[in-house]
């Protein structure tokens, strides 16, 4: 009950009140702006020190440049690192002001009207907000002792847990974007599942209050204590309206003995227009550590949006008998570019990993699978199986596979398979014959191609994701 009170308070704190709107962060990346963020979030001193340490380190780091999709240089001094929620007056007043194309997509996905408003950023009256739904869920979670709140709240209320685990999987000494995030992250989710608790529902940012304004530097930390289980959903099948171009989130997962974490993402941010103008840069660092024996982390992702997607959800298999899984669908159309894959680092004995990646490329898009399987000397009897299939539509797009496979243990087995092909003409013809039009036929065939991954999604997501696959490829064939 106590927790619930806190949440009501917080709801107030971040509500659309005038005094927050007027707050302006100093522009650019500097010690001053980091101190400002920390102060705004009323963070304890250790957190500020941690951020500054990351910033110190950032000064000596260079932006990586080995990736396939190149992008114009980002001026980090030209960004705002803390933006207060938008005022109601700046938002579209009603759905009439929203891009009709967007609305059409909503319709195809079958999204209710109220939700459409929320997604397209129409100012919604507090009454329509999903607060009430969220609070019911909260109660049930609190009963089980599950902590599910924003990371800022966790820093205040559960400093011991945060101190212990934050940065333990993605240290502040990591690569450029991860370190940048450590210095300036604004908000994100925090989940703690106590020992031997099976989380009774799929957790989703959607149910967390204020989820829509977490900003471009999100930080998520999920800890599954011994013997626990949690399934976490991130994102949304509907296209999201977003003001920020660069997204550099960090997601850290920690699974202790016998724990299991299932993390599913559906990403459909603005991909830019048909000529490749605009669109989000999605540079996310996601990493999970199977710390305990028999632990398991499973990543599932459906990436259809963003101008550039550049992420490698990874598993560090430290505990003996731990399991890492990665299921991915990456669809790129028009001028979209994706460079995604995974890293499976086998450290413990009898560790197993499985990678299934499906890349679909249409229009002038480029789709790259890049992955690492590393079996260390001590990881006896480990196994990996990797399959990456690419589908090309048209001769202006590209599909690439760049797997790195390292095996240092003679009792371990690594297998990798990859194919590249186009949609079978005969299959298309067969579908057409049975009365499906070109687009329906493509959608059906592509869904079949992705089936292995779609099956891994939780029920709620799977149905929408299937529709999304079809919609993302509209106009690419025929």
């Amino acid at each position, binding site marked *: 009950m106590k927790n619930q009170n806190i949440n009501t308070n917080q709801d107030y704190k971040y509500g659309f009140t005038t005094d927050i709107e007027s707050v302006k962060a100093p522009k650019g990346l500097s010690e001053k702006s980091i101190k400002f963020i920390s102060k705004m979030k009323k963070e304890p001193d250790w957190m500020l020190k941690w951020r500054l340490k990351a910033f110190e380190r950032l000064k000596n780091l260079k932006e990586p440049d080995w990736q396939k999709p190149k992008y114009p240089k980002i001026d980090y001094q030209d960004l705002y690192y803390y933006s207060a929620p938008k005022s109601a007056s700046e938002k579209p007043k009603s759905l009439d002001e929203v891009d009709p194309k967007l609305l059409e997509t909503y319709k195809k996905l079958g999204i209710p009207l109220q939700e459409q408003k929320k997604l397209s950023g129409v100012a919604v009256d507090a009454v329509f907000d999903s607060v009430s739904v969220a609070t019911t869920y909260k109660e049930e979670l609190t009963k089980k002792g599950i902590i599910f709140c924003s990371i800022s709240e966790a820093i205040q209320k559960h400093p011991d847990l945060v101190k212990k685990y934050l940065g333990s999987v993605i240290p502040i000494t990591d690569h450029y974007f991860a370190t940048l995030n450590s210095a300036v992250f604004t908000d994100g989710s925090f989940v703690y599942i106590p020992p031997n608790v099976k989380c009774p529902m799929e957790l989703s940012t959607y149910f967390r209050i204020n989820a829509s304004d977490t900003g471009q530097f999100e930080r998520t930390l999920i800890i599954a204590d011994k013997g626990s289980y949690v399934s976490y959903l991130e994102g949304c099948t509907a296209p999201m309206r977003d003001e920020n171009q660069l997204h550099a989130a960090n997601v850290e997962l920690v699974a202790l003995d016998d724990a299991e974490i299932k993390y599913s993402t559906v990403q459909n941010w603005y991909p830019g227009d048909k000529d490749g103008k605009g669109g989000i840069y999605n540079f996310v660092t996601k990493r999970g550590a199977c710390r305990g024996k028999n632990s398991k982390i499973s990543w599932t992702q459906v990436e259809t949006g963003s101008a550039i997607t550049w992420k490698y959800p990874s598993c560090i298999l430290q505990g003996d008998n731990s399991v890492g899984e990665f299921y991915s669908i990456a669809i790129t159309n028009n001028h979209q570019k994706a460079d995604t894959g995974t890293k499976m680092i086998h450290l413990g004995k009898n560790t197993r990993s499985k990678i299934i990646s499906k890349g679909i490329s249409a229009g002038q898009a480029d789709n790259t699978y890049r992955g690492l399987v590393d079996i260390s000397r001590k990881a006896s009897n480990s196994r990996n199986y990797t399959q990456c299939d690419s589908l090309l539509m048209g*001769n202006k797009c590209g599909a690439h596979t760049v797997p790195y496979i390292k095996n240092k243990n003679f009792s371990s087995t690594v297998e990798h398979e990859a*194919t590249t092909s186009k949609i079978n003409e005969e299959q298309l013809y067969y579908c057409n014959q049975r009365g499906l039009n070109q687009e329906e036929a493509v959608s059906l065939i592509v869904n079949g191609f992705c089936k292995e991954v779609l099956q891994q999604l939780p029920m709620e997501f799977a149905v929408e994701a299937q529709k999304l696959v079809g919609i993302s490829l509209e106009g690419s064939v025929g």
Partner: protein
Amino acid sequence: MNENFKISSSEIKKIKPLNQKEKKIRLENLKLFNQQGFPSRNQEDWKFSDINQIFSKNFKNLESFKNKIKPKSINFIKEFDHNHILMVNGKLENSEFKFEDKSKIKIKSYNDSNFSINNEENSLINLNNALSNNGLFLEVANNYRLEKAIIIYNVFTDDLKDNLLNNKNKIILGKNSELHIVEYNINQSKNKFIYNTIENIILNENASLKTINLQANQNEGFFYKFSKGKMKSNSYYSSFIFSSGPKFNKIDAEFDLEGENCDCNIKSALFIDKGKHQEIKTKINHLVPNCKSYQKIKSVVDAEGKGVYQGKIYVKDIAQKTNAYQLSKALLLSENSEFNSKPELEIYADDVKCSHGSTSGSVDENSIHYLMTRGLSKKQAVQLLVNGFLNEIIGDIKSNSVKKFIENKIEIQIHGY
């Protein structure tokens, strides 16, 4: 961090009299090399074979080499009839074509001096441009098909020590010509040295080139060979790599398929034992439609050995109907063996058939068990299985006498296990 290995410009003076222009080009290349040093793992292509580290661990100083002594007697291959070319420390000594029409074959010491002075990503090319002074030039005339294979005896004399040898080869095949080459490396030196080769291969329309790369013995040499090939329409290339033996060996092959209906094959069977390091790196560029490429790399890695395969298939947007295949299989025999692979596809055309596979693991326990129940010792069982594993590649060689000869060579290597 290691200090970059520097090569003194006085090494260039050791090369035969040079004109000013050439000297300038060479100095420029050397300068570029000295800026970069040997390639290290910071470079993508050298990720798994950091020769900057390997060389600085094994060499204190490096010198160019001048032939001082004659090679010891050489065991020429008697198992099958062949033409031969004798190269000593990379320098053309003599050649004999008793089965051929000699007017159709042009052979001489390679001495092209038109090197580029570009800053190469691979600093070994700059180094080679700066210091190479030997090599082989071989050209086969249009419409001539050689009766017998040519064996190139690549002999390294036993006074080589801490030396750096650079040379360049060029092989040109005229239209409708055919050539088989066995490159047979015989190393008489018991010491460490570096042999850095750049090879240019040009296959004109309908030409066919088959090469076999073989090492005669275990040795302490450090070998690097960069083969750059250009293939015109309907040409055929096949390469068998059996280069186990040297302390370090990297074969870096890049082929441009420029004409339609080319067929490019690279196959290898390697047995990498104690402390040895072998890498095969390939890049097949499909630039026009209807070409085929096929790669099959099999490696067996024993105690503290390290095997690497980096392969890339590039398919240009117009190269429809490409058929490209890439397979790497590795067996690890010991706790300290290591195999790394990076089979890469970069594809811009949609109507293609491209696939690759890569596996690495131990010898199948069930198979060992089966053989042991039939009375073989564990060691014998493993040897038999390893032999079978590598023999799949040898089986693809058409000539029976050559096949037998290589089978024997591989068996000797495996028995060392």
